């Protein structure tokens, strides 16, 4: 069965980034370092983001969920950024609208069986209380614990 690889090494907190590409590059590097994704993943995510942007206007802060097709993913993994300053991110379903994003979940999903995990992730960021707590955390271990407590990472 296995589970989605996620721990404090997969988290970046408190580091400012100039744009979505820089956030995605940092998180993709974390996934690559742990063997979750192969060559081409970073470019594939950035390319998909230009065609199908993933910024979501959640409250009180925006969330982005960049991802790509399963072919670039070797094993399930999750990397998370909690940003000290908002990064303007293109909003899902729009050509030009921007969302101020403070939380980014980069997903490496090699199979098509991760809907349960995604549903839980959606539940998490639909909760203003959960997002408020998440952006108040200042170290990677705390963020990792927070996410693990709210999202079941085992694949059953």
């Amino acid at each position, binding site marked *: 069965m296995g589970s989605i690889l996620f721990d404090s090494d997969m988290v970046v907190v408190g580091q400012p980034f100039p744009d979505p590409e820089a956030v995605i590059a940092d998180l993709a590097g974390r996934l690559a370092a742990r063997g979750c994704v192969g060559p081409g993943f970073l470019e594939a995510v950035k390319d998909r983001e230009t*065609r199908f942007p993933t910024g979501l206007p*959640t*409250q009180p802060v925006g969330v982005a969920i960049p991802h790509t097709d399963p072919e670039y993913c070797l094993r399930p993994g999750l990397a998370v950024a909690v940003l000290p300053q908002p990064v303007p991110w293109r909003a899902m*379903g729009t050509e030009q609208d921007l969302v101020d994003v403070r939380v980014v979940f980069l997903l490496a*999903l090699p199979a098509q069986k991760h*809907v349960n995990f995604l549903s839980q992730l959606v539940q998490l960021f639909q909760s203003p209380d959960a997002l408020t707590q998440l952006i108040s955390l200042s170290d990677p271990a705390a963020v990792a614990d927070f996410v693990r407590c709210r999202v079941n990472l085992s694949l059953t």
Partner: protein
Amino acid sequence: MAKYRIITLCGSGIASSTICAQKIRKGMAERGIDVEVKPIAFRELQGEIGKIDLVVSITPGLKVDINAPVVNGVPLLTGIGEQAVLDEIAQKLTGGKQ
């Protein structure tokens, strides 16, 4: 009563569209509307034209002529305005007859 056919549309047809589909099935069941919801990828859209009553899309730039109403599904992911979107879907399917 006829079963309405809805497709949910995202980039891959795997993740976001499936979550939207789950919420629509639940929301329409609560409203007593019989629906069949199928998540698809943007590139699969052409094959569905003429077979569907409604499209719920979270992709930008839906310029294909699909001859069916299109509803923006992003609120189903953010949770903000979710009930309003479900009401809009119900209204567009039934024409307010229900």
